[in-house]
Structures are given as C-alpha cells and as structure tokens.
C-alpha cells in the first residue's frame, strides 16, 4: 500500500541520527520557550532561521516544526503550575489546570495535559499523512486563477483572525504584499522599488524581517510590562493519574483532537483558536460540565489535545498548497524558500523524503515531549527564575550573530534594525505584524498567478469568476469578510481576543 511505503520512507528519514538530534533540539527549545512567557515559538523560529541555513532542508524543517508543537507542551506546564500561560494557546488551560494544582492535583493535571497532547499528536500525524497526498493532487490540478483566488482567501482569513481592527489588518497584508514585490521582477528582470540599493536586488531579507518583527519587537513589548514572577516550585507528587481520571479524559481528548484537527486546517486557524473552541464545546457537552471551571480534568484534557492537534494539522495547507495558515507557517515557508524549495503541491512529489520525514518526525517529537515533560517538569519551571532582561540580552546577541552569520553584510544588520523599529511602531499603532508576514511570503506567488491568469484570459478579469474553483474561493473570502463585519460578531470577536 502506498500509505505504508510512504510512512516507511518517513521513518527512514526521521530516524536518521542527525534528524533525531535536530528533532530533539527543536522540541527541547520549544518546551523551553513554551514555559517562558514573553518568548514564543514565533520569535524562536524567527531567531533560529539563520541557524538552519547550513542544515539539510529536512533537518531544518523538522527542528522548526518541533519548536512549534513543543511550545504547546511547555505552555501547559506553567499554565497549570503557576496560572501563567507560557503561550496564548494555553491560556484557557489555566482555568481548570491551576484550580487542580491548588487542590493538590497538579500531578494528574500535568499528566492529563501531556497524555491528551500525545494522543492528539498521534491522531493528527495520521490525519496529515492521510489527507496531504490527495489534497496536493487536487491542488496540482488548479489553474492560475484558482491558485490566485485561493491565496486571496488565505490572506483574508489571516485578516479575520488577526486581533484588532480589520481595516488595519488588511492594510498590513497590502504592506506585506508590497514589500514582497521589492527586488527583481521575475518576468522582465527589472530591479523594482529598490530605491537604487543593489543589496535589495534579491528582495527584502526575510530573516531580517522575521527576527525584527517577531523576535526583537516581541521582546520590546514585554520589556514594558515586566512582572516579578513568584515561582512556587512546590514538589509535584503523584504524577500518575488515577484510573477514574484516565476514564474521564478519554472522551474530552477525542473531542478536543477532532476539533483541533479541523480548526488547524482552516486558513487562519491553528493552536490558539482550537484550544478555545474545544474548551467551549466541552463546557456544553461534558458529563461533568458543572465542574468545568473549578478544576475539572476535562477542562485540561480538551484544550490541550486541541491545541496540539491544531498545531499539527496547520501543516496540511502549508505542505500541500504552499498556503501558510498562520505566521508560524509563514516562517516555515520562508525557511523552505531560503533552502531553495518552491512551496506548493509539488513538494510531495519532488521532495517525498522531506515531506514524509517531517510528518513522521512530528510523531517522534511528540513521544520525546511526553518523556521530556513529565519527569523533568520541576526543571522547566526553574527556568522562570531567569530575570527577563538577561533573557532579552541573550536573545539579542544570538539574533545579531545569527543574522550576521547568514549574510555577512552590514546591510542585513541595518535591515534587522529597521524592521525592529517598524515592529515597535506597528505595536504602538495596534497593527498586528502577522498579516504582513503572510502578505510578504505570498506576494511573489500572488503576482505570478495574477499575471499568468491575465495572460491566459487575454486580460479578462472575469476569469476569476467563471472558473468554478476560483469562484468558490472568492465567495468564501467575501463571506468571511461579511461575517466579521456583522456587528454582533465583531463585538464577540473583540471579547474573545481581549483575553490575551
């Protein structure tokens, strides 16, 4: 069977010694930044981008992916023990997890989080493996207009799920698209919008953009509200959940996994949305719904399984369509482009070892995470005692060396500084940088598909409406925009995003 031989190839790649090592480095780094509030997977992946330059493409993606799903594990640890979500996607876990810890049931809560995450990770790996190949076959049949409309939908979705003003998020997408056009025009070879700077012939440096907007700007944001953390490292005893605990988490874990898997695939979805949705559903349907909110184990298992499942199925559109569903996936695509791999449906055919190796490595990484997180939980929590400024300085120095090692020019250092300042300005003005990154990544592809479509149709723009698949994507995009502009939903959306 095809599926089995593909998995065999995946195991072959993922179990290579250096890939196991990079997977371990990734999940270790992910756990660490998951525990530390103020440094998230997005910043970490950005900062580590230059390190991946000299690595094999498969190893690079395996490590970066490990950071993303590893952070979901780490984030739950501090959410439960300290009422402090290390990541936004674990924010909802604090509700029941911390209550459990206060009742002396921290052990079972941590175990429930880890086990349900592992279950979700396993199922999500299978889902990715099952759906990715057929989906990329469908996508390969897309003609340029459909491809264009699909990317438009992807960009609109990133706007829908951005925090804050919709108008500003759209403007940020446009700004990103424009920044993506800087550099050499693929058709005519003209150097565009480079303002006479030869260094910009290859376009704006993605590494500088990513580290500046997400790495350094995120740090600047947190410098202001630095809180003194009280670390209560009580000894966590009785890690093993009882048999009745295990029975209680089965159903919520399955529900959470399904919800997370579905929401992770949607453009704009991912870990955070999944965990909120799963918790809300659990509150409605669980047998013990009255207890949820007061330290019920279901309230830990459901969101934790959902955020892990969502963080993994988010790879499906990225790998099969070349469409990043969130900023982390945009960075992954950036890493691929830097490795010389053209993202899109051809990856699965042209680079099967990379594709299946990455998928299998996710499962192996999940296994490592359970082993890493449960016995070593005390160790991770101790990292919280590192004063934030010390962390900042270390991150800054590492970013500087990293970007210098990647390019070796002062110009790229200047770009980094510029994007750090821009990130700061955007933050002040309430503009989210994530849509800009998606626009930047998709810009060149969007332009190429637009120009191809127009060539194909001899300049008739109605081609986007007459091609059925394309029309479908555009209708979905318009619906998404209408829905968020509806006043009732706009209000609810504000409430949901206010929480973090």
């Amino acid at each position: 069977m095809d599926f089995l031989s593909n998995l065999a190839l995946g195991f072959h790649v993922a179990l290579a010694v250096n890939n196991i090592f990079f997977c371990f480095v990734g999940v270790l780094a992910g756990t660490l930044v998951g525990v530390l509030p103020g440094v998230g997977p997005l910043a970490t992946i950005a900062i580590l981008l230059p390190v991946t330059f000299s690595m094999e493409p498969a190893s690079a993606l395996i490590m970066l992916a490990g950071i993303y799903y590893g952070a979901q594990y780490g984030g739950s640890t501090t959410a439960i023990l300290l009422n402090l979500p290390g990541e936004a996607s674990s924010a909802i876990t604090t509700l029941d997890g911390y209550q459990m810890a206060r009742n002396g049931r921290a052990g079972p809560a941590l175990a429930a989080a880890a086990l349900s995450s592992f279950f979700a990770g396993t199922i999500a790996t299978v889902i990715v493996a099952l759906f990715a190949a057929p989906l990329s076959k469908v996508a390969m049949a897309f003609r340029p207009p459909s491809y264009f409309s699909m990317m438009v939908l992807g960009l609109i979705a990133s706007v829908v799920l951005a925090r804050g003003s919709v108008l500003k998020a759209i403007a940020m997408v446009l700004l990103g698209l424009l920044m993506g056009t800087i550099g050499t025009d693929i058709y005519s070879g003209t150097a565009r919008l480079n303002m006479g700077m030869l260094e910009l012939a290859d376009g704006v440096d993605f590494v500088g953009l990513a580290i500046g907007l997400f790495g350094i700007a995120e740090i600047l944001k947190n410098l202001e509200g630095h809180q003194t953390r009280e670390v209560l490292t009580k000894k966590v005893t009785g890690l093993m959940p009882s048999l009745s605990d295990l029975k209680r988490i089965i159903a919520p874990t399955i529900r959470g996994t399904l919800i997370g898997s579905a929401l992770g695939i949607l453009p704009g979805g991912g870990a955070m949305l999944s965990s909120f949705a799963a918790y809300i559903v659990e509150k409605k349907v669980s047998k013990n719904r009255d207890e949820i909110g007061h330290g019920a184990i279901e309230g830990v298992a459901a969101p934790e399984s959902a955020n892990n499942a969502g963080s993994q199925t988010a790879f499906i559109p990225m790998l099969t369509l070349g469409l990043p569903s969130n900023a982390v996936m945009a960075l992954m695509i950036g890493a691929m482009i830097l490795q010389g791999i053209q993202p899109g449906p051809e990856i699965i055919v042209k680079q099967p070892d990379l594709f299946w190796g990455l998928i299998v490595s996710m499962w192996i990484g999940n296994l490592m995470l359970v082993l890493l997180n449960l016995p070593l939980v005390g160790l991770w929590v101790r990292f919280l005692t590192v004063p934030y400024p010390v962390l900042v300085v270390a991150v800054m120095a590492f970013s500087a060396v990293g970007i210098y090692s990647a390019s070796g020019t002062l110009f790229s250092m200047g770009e980094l500084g510029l994007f750090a300042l821009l990130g700061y300005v955007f933050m002040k003005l309430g503009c989210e940088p994530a849509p800009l990154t998606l626009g930047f990544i998709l810009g060149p592809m969007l332009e190429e598909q637009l120009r191809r479509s127009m060539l194909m149709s001899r300049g008739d723009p109605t081609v986007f409406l007459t091609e059925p698949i394309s029309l479908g994507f555009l209708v979905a995009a318009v619906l998404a925009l209408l829905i968020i502009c509806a006043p009732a939903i706009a209000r609810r959306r504000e409430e949901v995003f206010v929480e973090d």
Partner: protein
Amino acid sequence: MISKLNGRADVEAGILFTLFGILTAGLSLQYRLGSIATMGPGMFPLILGTILAILGLVILTKGLLARGEKSKSLPLGPVIMITASLLVFAFLVLPVGLVAAIPAQVVIALWASEHFTWKRAAALSAGLLVFCYVVFVHFLGIAVPMIAV
C-alpha cells in the same frame, strides 16, 4: 480634543499607510506598466499601492472621527538602547570580531535594564561567546569571525 486623542493610533497608522501607498505607487510608475493582459513590472505594485493609499485614508478618516483605538504607550528608552546595541555589534564585528562585539552589545543592552552588574555582564558575555562559538563555528561550520585578522 479628548475624542480626537482616542483615535490617535488610527490617525497615525492611516497616515503611515497612505504615505507608503503613495510612495510605492509613485515609484512603480517609473517601470513599464504594460497592459492588463501582459502586465509589466510596474502594474502589480501600482495597483497595490493605490489600494493601500485609499485604505490608509479610510483608516485616517475613521481615526479623525474618533472611533478608533488609542495608541499604546510603549517606552522609548529600551528601544533606543536595543537599536544602539545592534549598531555597536554591527560596527565591531567586522574589524574586531565577536570577542568584542558580543560583550559590547551585552553591556549596552543590560545597562538599559535595572539588572546591570559587571559580574553579570561578564558571565553573560562569556556564556554567549562560548555558546555562539559552539553553535555557529564548531557545529554549523559558519565562518563568523571570533577575532578578526
């Protein structure tokens, strides 16, 4: 006046977007536009720049009508220090090497926080130097100059 202040973030963001849109739309006019069927290099940036400029004006208007967000107050001090530390790093790494660039950056960046002690700066610099050497030079084989010659 208070109502105007409330929309300040939108006013500033609107001006920023409008200016950027006009700038790129203007710059793209110097490239061949082509026709809709065969677009030249200038067409796509021109379309995007125009839309961005219009959207910027909408956001600006919304801000002036004071329905928008307040701009967040973020401290400027750390931003200047962090940017300065990057600059110092950039200027030291080529002529002198990481041995000088990292400690200089650490001192400046730590100085900006209330956590500065010479002991901590020295320890952090030493740790980072070793870490960067192991990761970049030894492990990844990238020629980052430790000491420039």
